[in-house]
């Protein structure tokens, strides 16, 4: 490993100020930081620091995403690999371009966006659409606001929203029949033109005039049509619980979200508990609840605000699903929640300040 360190050391001057490739310094720094921990030292008190850094923080999300990524490979085949690669490359290009223009570091946050994005797309979507979507998401959802930490909306969802509105027909017709058996579609590369079907997803069937409900077990294991990462509730719960244990996703968002959704669903469909459970497992609810709504940057920063935000998303999801023609509502609900997050924060910060009023 000494060899790698030496190699990086040797290449460093080329990318420093005055070097021939100094414009690409952010890229070099990103690779450098990916390989080795930095030697940067604290200048001021406190002199020692906690081992947690943003890289680790984000890699926890990636680890939690592994189960549903695996599930997407199992159900929809090797096509996921180019989708993930395209997403990383296209989004990464925008990220690098902005880092170079701004002379800032490349942020680790993109590693999460780049993986999450293909998981919330129909698995049969043409690759160029994946690229367009992720570029739009990173550009408009993140970089325009000033990069990671300053974005209002979840970049992956902005990209998906753009795709859905732009290419609704393709988005609605690029499902792939999930594979079954021991190996699923693991041995296959699904061809978009051959395997893509414009059949209805479970939620659409349920919203039809004569509702048809996919069996609960299929929803639980993920053997249904849907976005690549959202079908398998089992994998999502596994990853989500992991994320809650790591403390990266805040339970203050997830639990009110799930409770709010449940209460609203009961109100709208009546007390059929099996149906309520069905709605929990169907569609993108769990993926959104565990991985999207909990994005700390675009959710409120106050603890009380997170409760309200979570509940708002849960209720909005149920309302959109059951009371509008858009039978799947997680994306719009979270984007709406993102929009309200700063206002919710304002209220809770004011309350917080009020609570501190008597402290002198």
């Amino acid at each position, binding site marked *: *490993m000494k060899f*790698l*360190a030496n190699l990086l050391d040797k290449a460093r001057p080329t990318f420093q100020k005055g070097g021939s490739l100094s414009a690409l310094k952010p890229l070099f720094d990103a690779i450098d*930081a990916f*390989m*080795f*921990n*930095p*030697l*940067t*030292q*604290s*200048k*001021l*008190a*406190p*002199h*020692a*620091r*906690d*081992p*947690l*850094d*943003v*890289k*680790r*923080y984000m*890699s*926890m999300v990636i680890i939690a995403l592994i189960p549903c990524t695996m599930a997407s490979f199992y159900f929809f085949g090797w096509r996921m690999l180019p989708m993930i690669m395209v997403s990383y490359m296209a989004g990464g290009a925008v990220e690098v371009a902005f880092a170079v223009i701004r002379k800032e*570091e490349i*942020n*680790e*946050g993109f590693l999460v966006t780049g993986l999450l994005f293909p998981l919330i797309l129909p698995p049969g979507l043409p690759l160029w659409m994946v690229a367009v979507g992720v570029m739009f998401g990173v550009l408009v959802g993140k970089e325009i606001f000033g*990069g*990671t*930490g*300053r974005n209002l909306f979840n970049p992956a969802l902005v990209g998906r929203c753009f795709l859905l509105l732009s290419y609704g027909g393709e988005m609605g017709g690029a499902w792939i029949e999930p594979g079954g058996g021991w190996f699923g579609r693991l041995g296959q590369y699904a061809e978009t033109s051959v395997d893509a079907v414009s059949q209805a997803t479970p939620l659409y069937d349920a919203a039809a005039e004569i509702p048809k409900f996919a069996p609960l077990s299929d929803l639980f294991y993920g053997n249904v049509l849907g976005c690549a990462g959202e079908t398998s509730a089992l994998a999502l719960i596994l990853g989500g619980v992991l994320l809650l*244990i*790591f*403390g*990266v996703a*805040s339970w203050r968002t997830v639990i009110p979200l799930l409770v709010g959704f449940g209460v609203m669903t009961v109100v709208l469909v009546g007390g059929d508990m099996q149906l309520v459970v069905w709605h929990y497992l169907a569609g993108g609810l769990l993926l959104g609840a565990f991985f999207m709504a909990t994005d*700390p*940057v675009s*959710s409120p*920063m*106050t*603890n009380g605000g997170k409760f309200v935000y979570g509940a708002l998303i849960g209720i909005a999801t149920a309302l959109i699903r059951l009371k509008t023609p858009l039978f799947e509502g997680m994306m719009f609900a979270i984007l709406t929640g993102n929009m309200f997050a700063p206002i919710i*924060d304002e209220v809770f*910060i004011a309350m*917080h*300040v009020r*609570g*501190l*009023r008597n*402290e*002198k």
Partner: protein
Amino acid sequence: MKPRGGYNVNLIGGPSGVVEKLSPPEKLCIPLHSRHLKFSELRVADGDSVSSGQTLAVDPEAFSVPLLAPCGGTAGLSRLDGHIVIENLNCPPDPAPDPELPTHVPYDSGQAAEKRRKLLELGAWQFVSNARTHQVADPDGTPSAVIVSTVHLEPFVARGSAICTGSINELVRGLEHLQSLLEYQAIHLVLPNVKLELAQDIQKTIRGHAWLKLSEVPLQMRYPFDNQTLLARHLGLFTEGDETVWFIPAAGVIAFDRALTLNRPCTSRIISLAGPVVKDPLHLEVPVGYPIDKIIAGRLTQDDNVRVVNGGILTGTQITEDQAGIDTECSGLTVLETPTVREMFGWLRLGCDRRSFSKCFTSTLKKAFGENLSTSLRGERRPCVACGQCVTVCPAGIMPNAIHKYLFSDELEQAQRLRTDLCAECGLCSYICPSKIDLYDELVRAKVRIAEELGPPAEEPEEQAAQENQEEDVA
């Protein structure tokens, strides 16, 4: 106010309870300023010969707190920048304590003024600080309450237990002297867990002296609950906003006793020498001005790539080349390694050996253990991702991340509204920040700026009126 937030940074290299007395050095380098004191008014000339206990300089801004010579010798002013160097030392050893000394001193509040003056002259007053500002308290002032703390929670400064052990009598006598400086105000004695041996000893000795107005406060042993401002708030001593609360550490009470009972100047300090690269971390009793390089020589496992910190890891200051000796406020020296080898894929490892506030490492599954910390930032500086850990850990109950956001866009009024002034300067927010933002430094600077540029916060009715005016303007 209930204690909230807080976190024990757990490291390898805590000092043992041993207190070693160092032999007199060849020369003393006494720094002319320390954290809160600046001895700008010199009382000796270059080349003067000084005697032990002579006033070398005073701080005119802090009620003329004197800087006393620990030993006799020749004073050199120009030898070292910002220091008084004393050479040709003549250090008379402390005579053995008189075994006949009574355990208790009678209560006599008639001489409060003289006693206070004496304390000031003998260098014991500098331990008394105003709990709100952390500056030396006014010797002519009247506090509304006094806090005496035997606890030091920050890693690694001299432990209260090490200072008090073997000096219980001195401590009790000092408390009684303290009582006679006051009229009726309560003294809050902060003890660690009351079941500890030390605490029980103190209680035993105090018991039966009903005239000592004392309330014992068992303290939750989590950093930074020993912080003087937080303690005062926790005890409910700040209600009006303009009370003066005195804070005296255990070492200060013992110094009171030394000055008033034995009539001797207080010029030596018990400091800790600890940290991951110290061979045998321990406590040292050293005179002020003891050269730092002499103290650490031979006591470290490595001589290069180390950082010596004056004070604890969280709030101490790095000792740079322009400080050569122990200053009058020093409570410990912490030595940390400055790493030179980069760890490969460090962020991918399971992390059994790194203790973190977060739950992102497998070490969460282990019981609490000390970690071999260094000065590394352990990550890159990134924009705030609003993870909220600083809010969880903040003992003052403020929101460092929200304040950071406002300071980033230079909205000082908003930072003031979010009560930046409550910051207790414990440094925990900086410690746990995954984005490696220097929140501690930012908050401290913001506090100063707010006090200078904005003054005290507007009263609430005015604030509302101002808001209404604004709304009208908009409409």
